[in-house]
């Protein structure tokens, strides 16, 4: 039973709810009835609210904001923001100073291998002709079975009929465009994965990928491998793939992979850890840093909320080594023929994910090798150890942190250091 004090409190509470108040006010002397009336009415009011789950039951909310406010939005004025690298994603690392102010393009002795879903002929052409930023795709490697025989094909012509049957594509196109923005004119070899409904391509983790890269490393002058994918299981049970990786490391090839977007330790989600290739010590793993504040749970200069993290120290070597902007990176979407400019091009939109942090770092490594060549006045490549030294020198952090790793690599600082190291090595 309610005492008069409690009733007064209730009365005050429902002051604005005049209808309730009037109902309660009536028949004031019969407290039991009033109590029943109030409870019944409250039940009636609360039932639908509780049942619709709008107020109380939010236990499955991940407390995790949408990654970026501008995800998939068009990049405004791409000629300036991408062409002149004035977007915050580039000015953050000083890439604008190296590439736009100093006009540094990647020399012809640097080749990046990108392993991804597929590439249409129009996407290939757009990546080579896009007016804001472009690359030089020197080859497309795929795998198929013909007449019972397994064949690996190296295609150099974007009009090749094989490219007409690419079921899965678009991600690779976006990744190479992120590379193109910083590493202008860089030579690219595309390794085609067989994904979902693809008729051909290499199976994920196929030994033949590594056999081809290793066998062609010298002739194609391959320096960097960029792989923006994650895998939940160990695909190297037989040691042959590890042997190929070891061989590539001996040839000073740096292998970069995405840390993953499941915002957890070891990139875990739904009971699985999507930690490979990051979990292999041969690979350098790249997470995402916020180059500006985007979203409720995002902080500038800190790891993007979605970016996965790994070991607490470098001892296990299963770590994320660096963070690069991946929270709103200009990428190409669609491809079309621009009749006015008479070229193939795409629409620049903002992409989100460690998929794009990875080619960003690959582009900085391409600048490092180009800077070293320029300082040395020769096409002799720096050793892998020298490249890592330069990356650590240009890192925003001196010490390793589980969340922040070595921070981001400053492109301006990295290029300058590489040039200087080249001069010293003359």
């Amino acid at each position: 039973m309610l005492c008069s004090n409690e009733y007064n409190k209730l009365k005050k509470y429902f002051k604005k709810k005049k209808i309730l108040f009037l109902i309660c006010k009536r028949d004031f002397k019969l407290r039991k009835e009033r109590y029943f009336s109030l409870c019944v009415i409250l039940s009636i009011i609360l039932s639908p609210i509780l049942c619709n789950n709008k107020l109380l039951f939010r236990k499955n909310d991940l407390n995790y904001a949408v990654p970026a406010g501008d995800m998939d939005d068009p990049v405004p004025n791409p000629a300036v923001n991408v062409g002149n690298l004035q977007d915050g994603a580039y000015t953050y690392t000083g890439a604008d100073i190296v590439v736009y102010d100093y006009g540094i393009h990647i020399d012809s002795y640097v080749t990046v291998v990108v392993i991804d879903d597929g590439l249409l002929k129009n996407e290939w052409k757009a990546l080579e002709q896009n007016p804001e930023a472009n690359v030089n795709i020197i080859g497309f490697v795929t795998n198929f079975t013909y007449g019972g025989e397994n064949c690996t094909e190296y295609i150099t012509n974007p009009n090749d009929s094989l490219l007409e049957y690419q079921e899965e594509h678009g991600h690779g196109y976006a990744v190479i465009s992120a590379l193109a923005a910083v590493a202008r004119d860089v030579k690219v070899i595309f390794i085609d994965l067989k994904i979902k409904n693809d008729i051909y391509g290499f199976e994920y983790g196929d030994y033949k990928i590594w056999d081809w890269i290793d066998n062609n490393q010298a002739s194609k002058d391959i320096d960097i491998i960029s792989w923006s994918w994650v895998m939940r299981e160990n695909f190297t049970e037989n040691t042959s793939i590890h042997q190929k990786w070891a061989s590539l490391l001996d040839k000073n090839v740096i292998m970069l992979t995405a840390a993953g977007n499941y915002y957890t330790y070891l990139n875990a989600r739904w009971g699985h850890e999507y930690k490979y290739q990051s979990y292999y010590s041969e690979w350098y793993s790249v997470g995402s840093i916020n180059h500006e504040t985007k979203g409720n749970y995002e902080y500038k200069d800190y790891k993007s909320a979605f970016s996965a993290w790994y070991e607490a120290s470098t001892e296990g070597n299963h770590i994320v080594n660096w963070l690069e902007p991946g929270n709103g990176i200009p990428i190409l979407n669609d491809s079309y023929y621009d009749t006015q400019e008479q070229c193939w091009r795409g629409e620049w939109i903002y992409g989100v994910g460690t998929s794009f942090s990875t080619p960003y770092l690959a582009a900085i490594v391409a600048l490092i090798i180009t800077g070293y060549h320029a300082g040395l006045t020769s096409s002799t490549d720096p050793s892998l150890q020298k490249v890592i030294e330069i990356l650590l020198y240009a890192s925003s952090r001196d010490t390793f942190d589980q969340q922040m790793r070595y921070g981001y690599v400053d492109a301006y600082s990295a290029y300058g250091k590489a040039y200087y190291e080249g001069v010293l090595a003359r």
Partner: protein
Amino acid sequence: MIKSSNKFLTITLIFQILLLPISSVNGYQPVIDSRVSKINEITPNISGPYQPNSTLFGIEVEVEILNRDNKSQTVIELTDLNSYAFINASFVNQSLQLDLLSYGAAIIRQYSYKPGITTEYNLMKFYINQSGLTYLPDGNYTLWRPILFINSSGNITEGESLSTIISINDGNMNITYGSFNYQVPIEDDNNLDINDQTTETINSPFTESLLIISLLSCVIVIWRKKTKMK
């Protein structure tokens, strides 16, 4: 008579106060639900990355995504996986293990789902650690499609993923599909724009009965008041 009426009302109220939260959980209907709605094909020895001493199976499934709201909802994929549907298993032969082949591009994508049910297709590939299998071994297989969406506060929220169970006993297969507890809205022939006025949540019968009890109690209270005033 008055005393028994009071008792009835007291019991009713206690009943409601104690059970309303439980009924609300039962009546909870997430905005986005997902379920594996059909098993199209089960293929042993499907093409894929080789693993020694294992058989690679493929199961092609139809997946339904239900948006209960009356406006489009944004579903977010933190990784573009080769299959968004998942599977695990408990085998009669306990030495067997299922290992889902799952990989994806580390790109965050968002998709808009209209009100009502959207059907998609997924091909799950998984290894069972025994070579040369030509059919699924005896056991229970659970299939589901986890899903995240952006709620009205702008946060990523987990939708409800209903499980579909494949039971295999002595080679006989029995499939139990998860159910949405959802009535497909009846199409109005005069209004082709069905997406603007579809879907309404259906609360559990238990919650509905409580509401009826509440209304009855209210009627009794008002009736008694009126009787006394006379």
